[in-house]
């Protein structure tokens, strides 16, 4: 038996799970329209691959991942693309975003697809590519692209499959474990093959005895262990579950992989199995519909993009009786304003509670500092103090009290006898601080840019002055030479050349400039290095942010902020890049001087500068070259020319190169 550890705090809200556990997972009739948001995951929204009017097949990719942290989207059924526009998407702010709408034709016609018979024959990159191209993202609520999480090259001690499902009301994972245990185990084995963990554990709260028994049976002989632990909210938070099953804590601001842990939700794991073994992309998910305002409660296999309205109609929703409509659970879910919003990859529950179940807002009373919130906090914060500081906008104290480690689980608000919406204060405070920081950073960037410009202008002025002085001296000397009757012409020439050397030798000047830059006048790194570094940092930041989202939005805002600032920085660095390459030595050097050009090149090399074009530019160039070569090849083939073979070879070579570059780019960004 695997030992389990306890976590501080936590609460025991009424579970309300039995309502939706009565029936098997049921399919849903096809809706009249599917609306697929491009951003169903954390990271860059996908890029549409289809146009309005296109006919698409079930499982056909309709949008492609836009970058490393992104995920493609597939048509959930066959039909016609009717619109690509902005629609309301599931988001706490009720915002609109780019969506592809599909009108199903009812034929459910699959695209040709096939799984991999023996995935153990695939190497890591191939397997990851399968998972990536199937559009699989964390389905427990986070939506972080699974392939990114799994691409870690850190040694992994524990692979943890999260079947905790600690939020009240939600039973999607419970039913999945009961009905598709074999899929989950098979998925876990694929993951095991992929990341080679020391142990694979499946964590389940002890309020799901049926699921535990079935999973235990399914896991028999697989070496995968089912770990059960007492029910307590929020045991299913990524950080909390890690603490429960391993006793370790993810360092603040770090990733689980930093301590040798990778976690995936059971739904995600099953989806990975279907993607690898059956070649099916992620086009549907299990969603719980529950609450007293629906007459039919249960779990449904819902096509992504299904409007909630369709789901609710099927479940005989009584809009008049509902106190609100929640996507997710009562602790961390967000309220929806209308029913037109679609089910996405992360929608695990639609909760339609009656007024008796979840009454409207109760006015908050004064904080009596009873510390019930602190007793309930699973990350050992002092919510009452945070509340105090948040009201006083005391940013330093908020940070000293680790506001950004708050996972927004809602335990504190739940227990607060004064009904204070504590989490709301924290969200606002986090957003505020991030904005503050961003503003600061922005003004700092502006300041740095201004100073750099000032320095450049000063330098240019100084150079001009020096030139003028040299010229004046030269004139004076020439005059003196001219005045002296015995003036030696040769002497004058020497003087001239010396003056020229002193004032104008560009190589000398360039080297001096470089020296002064290196000795602290300017940042020691080249702009290219800076950009590379920034890119790297951005990638980490995005990953962290996504993982933060995955683990229940802990620190999300902080990461979000750092991503935006990094993006801003990167943009400025890039925009500065061409300017800088122009202003550095080249600008003041006569182009005709070949020696100078050589020095310049050498210097650029010395400074470690990469070619000034970005990898994307390079890629584009390569693609263009490839296209031209292909065209030539076609022509040669048509003409029966003898160059065909050579051209073919070069096309092949180019393709290889291109692929390599693409891979590199994906890794870098």
């Amino acid at each position, binding site marked *: 038996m695997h030992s389990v550890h306890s976590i501080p705090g936590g609460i025991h*809200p*009424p579970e309300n799970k039995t309502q939706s556990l009565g029936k098997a997972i049921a399919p849903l009739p096809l809706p009249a329209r599917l609306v697929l948001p491009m951003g169903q995951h954390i990271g860059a929204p996908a890029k549409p691959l289809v146009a309005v009017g296109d006919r698409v097949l079930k499982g056909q990719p309709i949008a492609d991942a836009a970058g490393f942290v992104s995920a493609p989207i597939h048509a959930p059924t066959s039909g016609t693309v009717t619109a690509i526009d902005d629609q309301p998407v599931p988001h*706490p702010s009720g915002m609109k975003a780019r969506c592809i709408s599909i009108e199903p034709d009812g034929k459910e016609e699959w695209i040709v697809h096939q799984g991999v018979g023996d995935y153990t024959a695939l190497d890591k990159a191939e397997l990851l590519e399968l998972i990536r191209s199937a559009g699989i993202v964390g389905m427990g609520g986070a939506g972080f692209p699974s392939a990114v999480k799994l691409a870690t090259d850190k040694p992994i001690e524990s692979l943890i499959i999260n079947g905790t499902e600690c939020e009240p009301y939600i039973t999607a994972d419970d039913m999945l474990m009961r009905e598709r245990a074999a899929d989950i185990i098979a998925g876990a084995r694929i993951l095991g093959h992929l990341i080679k963990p020391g142990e694979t554990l499946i964590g389940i709260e002890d309020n799901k005895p049926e699921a535990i028994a079935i999973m235990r049976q399914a896991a028999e002989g697989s070496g995968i262990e089912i770990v059960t632990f007492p029910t307590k909210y929020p045991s299913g938070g990524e*950080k909390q579950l890690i603490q429960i099953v391993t006793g370790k*804590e*993810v*360092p*603040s*601001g*770090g990733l689980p992989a930093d301590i040798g842990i990778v976690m995936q939700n059971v739904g995600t794991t099953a989806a990975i199995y279907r993607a690898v073994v059956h070649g099916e992309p992620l086009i549907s998910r299990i969603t719980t519909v529950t609450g007293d305002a629906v007459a039919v409660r249960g779990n449904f296999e819902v096509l992504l993009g299904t409007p909630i309205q369709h789901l609710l109609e099927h479940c005989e929703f009584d*809009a008049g009786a*509902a*106190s*609100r*409509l929640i996507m*997710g659970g*009562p*602790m*961390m*879910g*967000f*309220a929806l*304003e*209308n*029913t037109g919003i679609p089910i996405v990859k992360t929608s695990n529950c639609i909760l339609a509670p009656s007024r008796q179940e*979840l009454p*409207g*807002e*109760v*006015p908050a*009373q*004064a904080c*009596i*500092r*009873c*510390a019930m919130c*602190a*007793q309930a906090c*699973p*990350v*050992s*914060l*002092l919510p*009452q103090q945070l509340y105090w500081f948040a009201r006083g906008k005391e940013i330093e104290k908020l940070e*000293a*009290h*680790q506001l950004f*480690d708050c996972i*927004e689980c*809602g335990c504190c608000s*739940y*227990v*607060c*006898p*004064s*009904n204070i*919406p504590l*989490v*709301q204060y924290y*969200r606002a405070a986090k957003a505020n601080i991030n904005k503050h920081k961003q503003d600061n950073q922005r003004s700092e960037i502006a300041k740095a840019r201004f100073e750099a410009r000032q320095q450049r202008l000063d330098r240019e002025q100084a150079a001009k002055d020096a030139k003028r002085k040299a010229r004046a001296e030269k004139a004076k000397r020439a005059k003196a030479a001219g005045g002296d009757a015995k003036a030696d012409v040769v002497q004058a020439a020497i003087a001239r050349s010396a003056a020229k050397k002193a004032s104008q030798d560009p190589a000398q000047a360039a080297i001096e400039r470089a020296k002064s830059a290196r000795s602290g006048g300017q940042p020691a790194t080249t702009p290219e290095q800076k950009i590379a570094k920034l890119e790297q940092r951005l990638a980490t930041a995005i990953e962290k942010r996504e993982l933060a989202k995955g683990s229940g939005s802990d620190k999300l805002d902080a990461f979000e902020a750092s991503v935006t600032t990094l993006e801003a920085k990167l943009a400025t660095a890039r925009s500065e890049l061409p300017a800088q390459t122009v202003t550095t030595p080249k600008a003041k050097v006569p182009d005709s001087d070949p020696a100078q050009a050589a020095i310049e090149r050498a210097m650029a090399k010395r400074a470690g500068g990469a070619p000034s074009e970005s990898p994307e530019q390079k890629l584009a160039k390569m693609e263009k070259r490839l296209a031209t070569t292909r065209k030539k090849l076609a022509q040669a083939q048509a003409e029966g020319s003898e160059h065909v073979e050579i051209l073919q070879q070069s096309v092949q070579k180019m393709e290889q190169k291109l692929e390599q570059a693409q891979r590199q780019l994906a890794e870098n960004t």
Partner: protein
Amino acid sequence: MAFLRVTSPHAHTVQDTASVMRLVLYATIPGIIALTWFFGFGTLVNIVWAGFIALVCEAAILKLRGLPVGFYLKDYSALVTATLLAIALPPYAPWWVVLVGVAFAIIIVKHLYGGMGHNPFNPAMAAYVVLLISFPVQMTSWAAPLHTLVEHPLPPGPLEAISINFGLLRDGVDAITMATPLDILKQNKSLMMEDLWLANPQFGLVGGRGWEWANLAFLAGGVFLLARRVFTWHAPVAFLLTLALMAGFGYDSGSSQSGGSPLFHLFTGATMFGAFFIVTDPVTSAVSNRGRLVYGAMIGLLVYIIRAWGNYPDAVAFAVLLGNFAAPFIDYYTQPRTYGHG
């Protein structure tokens, strides 16, 4: 169709501040019964009178501050303050002492410092200290539970208590008050503990006569609140343990210089009342569990020091105020370790 847009969490416990305060009030009942049994109806009269003043003061101040009177009166916090102060006061303190005390607690200590939840000092204890300094005679006249010995008349009944407290029978006070066990102990210079016990009827089995039962009753109320999770065990247990430990050091097996046994200290004066109804006041104590351990221990230490060497016989009020004062510093040094921070 637009639905209510609210942020998570959507669920909430049924417990509210008013119910917490009500629990505290219920938990004082055993102690009040014990006090009434041994010292007569004076305390009850004071509680009713204090409660009335508290509600009037609270309502007036809320009105002045432009806050919704009904909404805030319903949190019962004024009644709790009044009840706790009335329990701490001598049962036959004159009506104006109660009036001054409650008004001071509500208007100055509570509202002038920002109202509910903002006050750095425990209102009941701050008012108690002010009264003790201003009216030492009235504040040190405690009734004695002599009726539990043979031949003594019963303590004042309801009507008698009212007439005493409201000044009609003021002369009667002297007849029913005596030095408290803590006073006696303080004044003792020559007698061994055992002899002191025999010489003074105020001493009971282990603590003061009657006092020990009242302490036991407050302990029961405290255990009830602990069971209902109104507060955690940290502050009261640290307080009681430290006090007992200090008393153990100072006991020296009962010489005339002895400071009284641990049991004597635990079951005399305001010890249990202080431990479960004052030290546990969330507003004015340290906030974290560790902080509350330190806070409780500090008050326990101070209570013993003041009882043993200070000028005032009972010390809970002073010690608590000092503890209140130190609470922010304690908080600063006892911030819990957050998840993910080494």
